[in-house]
């Protein structure tokens, strides 16, 4: 537990404004709303701009492998902005969680400010040798993820967490069989990282998305649409060996939960700001409705919650970046807290906007659906509270 910096550095502020500018011009709310009617055309160009042009895909990839070598602090700032736009891009699933599986699989600490990765590659997909997956690309899968050339996701349900994740695939030779439901980021991925139970542990295999059967799911949150994924003898390559797989998956899912808190802060802040702005304009009974005390008090309480969520999310990101011994506590703390705040903020937004908040046209529903799905993603608040009880010696 240390006095890490909970504010934003100048570099982080500048990254934020770059990401915000791009999202402002390339991620209009009506394009996200259209995803609920099956039009996903906003995703591809937006993700290419973020991933490759801004280099965000490689934020958590070490510089030696072609990434930016940034820390969880910067990734968190990106997630705040993505949350603020309910941006439908696979940053969390590919650039945080899948990337972290591979970094952790090499024995390094994903998200720490200075990650040193062993150059010795593990499986063929990770080495420079020709592979089915990478067609001989030098820097391996991590390098391809960093450049935005490829996008990956971890094939577990979005509701899986560091505390509990299902392992359903089995491997015979180099062929995978099994079915995973409710996978986020799968529709945007060209590589799937699949946990496989083997004698002596848990391996992670890489599979071409084209080699899997992908059934899109009508999802509560269509801006992060899920898919049911099945493998029927799909060709695969080992990317994390059995002795490192379990730890790598827990680390990556833990990091995902810790950083999801920042997305939730972005959602909550948008909901607060939008509600306040609307209530300063909207008039009823001859008055601006934001002047009614019943509404002022609810917004004051919401402001307090959002400020607190920000502190929790910053602490989670900062302790990961510092590789602080408190990072596990910080991650579950942030997820246990920020989940509820994002949902509360979105619910207040819908309610306080009145009728307009119930419409399809107004983007408030995008935030409510994302917030509610995020509450279940990567461990429910209750699951994180239970884990915290163990971590801080408050046993059930």
């Amino acid at each position: 537990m240390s006095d890490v910096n909970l504010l934003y550095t100048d570099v982080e502020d500048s990254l934020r404004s770059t990401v915000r500018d791009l999202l402002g011009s390339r991620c209009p709310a009506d394009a996200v709303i259209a995803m609920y009617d099956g039009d996903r055309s906003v995703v591809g160009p937006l993700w290419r701009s973020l991933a490759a042009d801004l280099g965000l895909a490689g934020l958590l990839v070490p510089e030696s492998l072609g990434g930016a070598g940034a820390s969880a602090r910067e990734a968190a700032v990106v997630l705040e902005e993505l949350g603020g736009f309910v941006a439908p891009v696979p940053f969390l699933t590919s650039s945080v969680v899948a990337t972290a599986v591979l970094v952790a699989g090499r024995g390094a600490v994903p998200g720490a400010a200075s990650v040193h990765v062993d150059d010795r590659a593990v499986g063929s997909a990770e080495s420079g040798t020709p592979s089915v997956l990478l067609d001989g690309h030098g820097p391996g899968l991590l390098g391809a993820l960093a450049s935005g050339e490829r996008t990956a996701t971890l094939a577990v349900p979005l509701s899986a967490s560091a505390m509990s994740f299902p392992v359903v695939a089995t491997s015979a030779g180099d062929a995978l069989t099994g079915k995973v439901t409710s996978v986020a980021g799968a529709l945007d991925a060209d590589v799937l990282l699949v946990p496989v139970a083997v004698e002596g542990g848990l391996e992670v295999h890489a599979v071409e998305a084209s080699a899997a059967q992908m059934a899109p799911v009508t999802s509560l949150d269509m801006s992060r649409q899920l898919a049911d994924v099945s493998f029927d003898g799909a060709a695969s390559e080992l990317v994390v060996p059995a002795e490192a797989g379990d730890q790598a998956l827990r680390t990556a899912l833990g990091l995902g939960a810790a950083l999801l808190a920042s997305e939730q802060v972005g959602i909550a802040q948008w909901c607060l700001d939008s509600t306040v702005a609307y209530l300063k304009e909207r008039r009823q009974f001859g008055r601006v409705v934001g002047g009614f005390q019943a509404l002022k008090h609810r917004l004051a309480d919401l402001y307090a919650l959002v400020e607190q969520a920000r502190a929790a999310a910053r602490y989670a990101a900062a302790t990961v970046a510092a590789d602080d011994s408190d990072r596990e506590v910080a991650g579950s703390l942030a997820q246990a807290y920020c989940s509820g705040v994002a949902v509360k903020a979105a619910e207040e937004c819908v309610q306080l906007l009145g009728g307009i908040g119930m419409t399809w046209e107004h983007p408030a529903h995008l935030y409510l659906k994302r917030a509610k799905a995020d509450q279940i993603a990567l461990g429910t608040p209750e699951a994180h509270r239970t884990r915290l009880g163990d971590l801080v010696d408050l046993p059930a």
Partner: protein
Amino acid sequence: MSTPSVSTEDTRRDLAARVESLLSSYPPGSTERLEFLRARFDAGLAWVHFPEGLGGLGLPRGFQQYVEQLLAEAGAPDNEPRKIGIGLGMAAPTILAFGSDEQKQRYLRPLWTGEEVWCQLFSEPGAGSDLAALATRAVPDGDAWVVNGQKVWTSSAHKAQRGILVARTDPNAPKHRGMTYFLADMTDPGVEVRPLRQITGEAEFNEVFMTDVRIPDSDRLGEVGEGWKVANATLMNERVAIGGAAQPREGGMVGKVAATWRSRPEVRTPGMHDRLMTGWVEAEVFRLTGMRLRQKLLVGAPGPEGSAMKLTFARLAQELSGLEVELVGEDGLRYGDWTMTRPEKVDFTGRDAGYRYLRAKGNSIEGGTSEILRNIVAERVLGLPSEPRVDKDIPWKDIPR
């Protein structure tokens, strides 16, 4: 708070040298407590963010912790801040901001050493949340003012030598414009202090009756008619003082509940566990929010954000203390002691679970009710419209009461 710079290191070295020099000139083991505290003040190590010559060194607030740490390690006596909280947290920053040079020289040193205990004479029976409605009158008389009226909820009044006082000096002006701020002498024969027994059984507060109390004009703080502005500076500091103290993990009310949970396995149930962890999470996040706010405020004065902190502080203290009473079951039916006493200092986390539960009820009332604080956050942080104020522009004397 960004990256430690060379100058930060230089400052720490300089502070360490000053502490060293203080300790060698006034070895704590062989120096009388008060003498040591006066010397510490004169060395600028009392509150380093205050100006030189007034107990400080004009440094950012954040360096104070380092000084405290060095002095504590050396076994030096402190000024028992819990006993003089109103002086340190409210009177001092207000005197610093609005006082004349003479006032700062006269008052800050004995305030900090605890030689003069301060109390706060703000609330009145008819002026609680609507503090600006206050009716205590100060009438000019030569080079002094004559004060008559009644104040209430005055902690430490029975021990105080001085009080920060807001009184009405112009009943013909609208209420916010007719007040003036004074540094009152509590030993004046016209000051009568009566204990005010409270919900816990004890009396930490007082009622203060002032009858023809004479205050020299030189003890007026700020301009005549500027009392509201000066009082607001005090109140901002009060909210930070109540809600914003640095705490270790499990440092506040949550630590009491957690300790009970750990030491009494027989009270554990799944339902209680989830409530405990929910409270623990909220308390820890609140602590981090305070840490973040202090990082923001390292250089600078408290703003309306402190009001949001105090709101949460009060809610959590009440929820957690209530949870603990429930948690201990049958023991929650018993109460330590209803005897009327006058506590030396107030510890929100002191005594037993029942006391903590009852005392926490005051947290959402003292220093601004939670309802008023929500107005402040909504108006000053979020920029929402002000409450309608029908009495704002009419002379105070014409307001119906």
